[in-house]
């Protein structure tokens, strides 16, 4: 064994995946099994008491899934990771690891609509209250912190607004109040940004996006830094005897591993939102090319932004400085947006991002179609806004398709005005 700090691309391929110890298989095998045979009753008891390492039941851990978890922990620079069935499951379980009925969480409001619903509707029904404030308004965020606030949540790149979070400042704010900063890093991927390097304590992803990279697989991951002090007294779920696990005091027994151990042994175990071995295997295959794909996504996105900015049918382009997902406004509002989408040939009209295929969605005619124009603007989505997730096709083919559809989007308007 040699001592070396390996680079990001090397770890994208190798972390978590040494040759299979049993067979020598170089690719990590798909361990498609529900349960694992114990050696002796002594070993079984040690496993159940969390004193030894090993697999019991694939709802809690599985060798293929563990390999994916370790690879993500390595890429994000964390202590360890836990995989979940989706990004929403990853963030739900993160909240449940820290907060219970009567507690409060604080979130950026520049986030995915599904997360807003999870926090403001589903968690509220479970007795956990959520507040929201603009991610760049630190005074409003700080004013919303209460004695029972358990975490601050933000997205590295807000969906769909593209707002970049100042993670260093958010971490400072959270830590000033003794709470961890939880960052959804889905739109950046660890190739473009590693929130733990900017002070974040917990990182979550929808692995369905750039980690999969091919729009094939649902998955989520949570990575924790191991740096946050959960033994301060503010997190009784971690620092007081746990009736859910042999009255263990996780912070006392596990030190820096307390959060990850409790999140797996209690939260994942009881919620049952585990990742399947097959899905972990596909996601690891995706990770092997993450650096190559992200370079190409960003390169293509820059070319598409430049193309759109020069088009007369485009009123505005709002592209963050990072990533390959952005919105633009089409002249002619909601109707022009609808005609634009209906005229595309190569771009896929669907509700996902981070695929090798280029994707498009028009919120006003889909996710926000029940709102009128004023209501949509209040929700932060312009009626003319179109969201693009730029894929890996030839730029010339992508702009050919966009150009045709942009022209078509205005034809209806001309026909209408001629009438």
């Amino acid at each position, binding site marked *: *064994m*040699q*001592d*070396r700090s*390996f680079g990001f691309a*090397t*770890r994208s391929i*190798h*972390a*978590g995946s*040494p*040759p299979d*110890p*049993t067979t*020598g298989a*170089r690719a990590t095998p798909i361990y498609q099994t529900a349960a694992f045979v114990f050696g002796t009753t*002594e*070993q079984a008891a*040690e496993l159940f*008491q969390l*004193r*030894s*390492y*090993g*697999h019991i039941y694939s709802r809690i*851990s599985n*060798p293929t*899934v*563990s*390999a994916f*978890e*370790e690879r993500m*922990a*390595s890429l994000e620079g*964390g*202590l*360890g*990771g*836990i*995989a979940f069935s989706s990004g929403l499951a990853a963030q739900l379980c993160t909240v449940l690891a820290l907060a219970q009925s009567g507690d409060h969480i604080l979130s950026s409001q520049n986030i995915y609509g599904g997360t807003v619903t999870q926090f403001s509707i589903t968690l509220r029904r479970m007795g956990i209250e959520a507040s929201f404030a603009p991610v760049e308004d630190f005074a409003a965020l700080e004013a919303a912190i209460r004695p029972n606030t358990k975490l601050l949540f933000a997205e590295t790149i807000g969906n769909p607004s593209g707002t970049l979070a100042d993670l260093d400042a958010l971490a400072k704010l959270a830590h000033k109040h003794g709470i961890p900063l939880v960052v959804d890093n889905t739109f950046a991927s660890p190739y473009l940004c590693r929130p733990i390097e900017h002070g974040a304590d917990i990182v979550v992803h929808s692995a369905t996006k750039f980690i999969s990279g091919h729009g094939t697989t649902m998955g989520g991951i949570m990575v924790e830094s191991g740096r946050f002090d959960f033994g301060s007294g503010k997190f009784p779920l971690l620092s007081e005897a746990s009736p859910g696990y042999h*009255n*263990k*005091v996780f912070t*006392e*027994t*596990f*030190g820096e*591993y307390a959060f*990850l151990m409790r999140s*797996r042994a209690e939260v994942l175990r009881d919620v049952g939102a585990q990742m399947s071995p097959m899905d972990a295997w596909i996601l690891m295959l995706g990770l092997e090319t993450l650096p190559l794909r992200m370079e190409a996504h960003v390169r293509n996105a820059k070319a598409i932004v430049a193309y759109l900015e020069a088009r007369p049918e485009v009123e505005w382009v709002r592209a963050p400085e990072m990533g390959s997902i952005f919105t633009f406004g089409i002249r002619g509002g909601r109707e022009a947006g609808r005609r634009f989408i209906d005229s595309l040939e190569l771009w896929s009209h669907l509700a996902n991002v981070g695929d090798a295929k280029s994707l498009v969605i028009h919120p006003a005619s889909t996710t926000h179609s029940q709102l009128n124009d004023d209501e949509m603007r209040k929700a932060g989505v312009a009626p003319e806004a179109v969201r693009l997730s730029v894929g890996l096709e030839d730029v010339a083919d992508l702009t050919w398709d966009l150009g045709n559809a942009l022209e078509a989007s205005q034809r209806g308007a001309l026909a209408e005005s001629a009438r």
Partner: protein
Amino acid sequence: MILETPAQRRALLERSKSVAVVGASNNPLRPSYTVFSYLRTQHRYAIAAINPTIAQIDGVVAYPSLSAYAQANGAPDIIDVFRKPSEVVPLVQEAIAVGAKAIWFQYGVINEEAIALADKAGLDVVVDRCMKVESARFNGGLSMTGLNSGIITSRRSETHA
């Protein structure tokens, strides 16, 4: 020598045969019990507890002192230390006297005088690390739990070959 790299710690764990855990508790909630129990059930090392306040842990005899252990068994290859940092200088002196080869200070057991003393006497010294975690780093235990072991290799594990 102070062992600062993963490869050095791995080599120490692989060449050692006996471990004396100083300050091992018989309270299952304590980290020292967890580490002791892990090392005992790995069946990789001859393991003993050093604790004058208890007679045994899970059937393994607890010796009142390092010297008492050494009298019965000879010097241990590794002394694993769960003690207050302020109390470890005399322990290092005792370790040197019995001829121990390595001393391992667990998380938070940091005493510069004790470290320097052990280093100067030629012991291998590990500081602010957990023997359970480091064992699991190299035997695949951390990886099984989704923890970042830092291990990158395309060589087949020898322990399973």
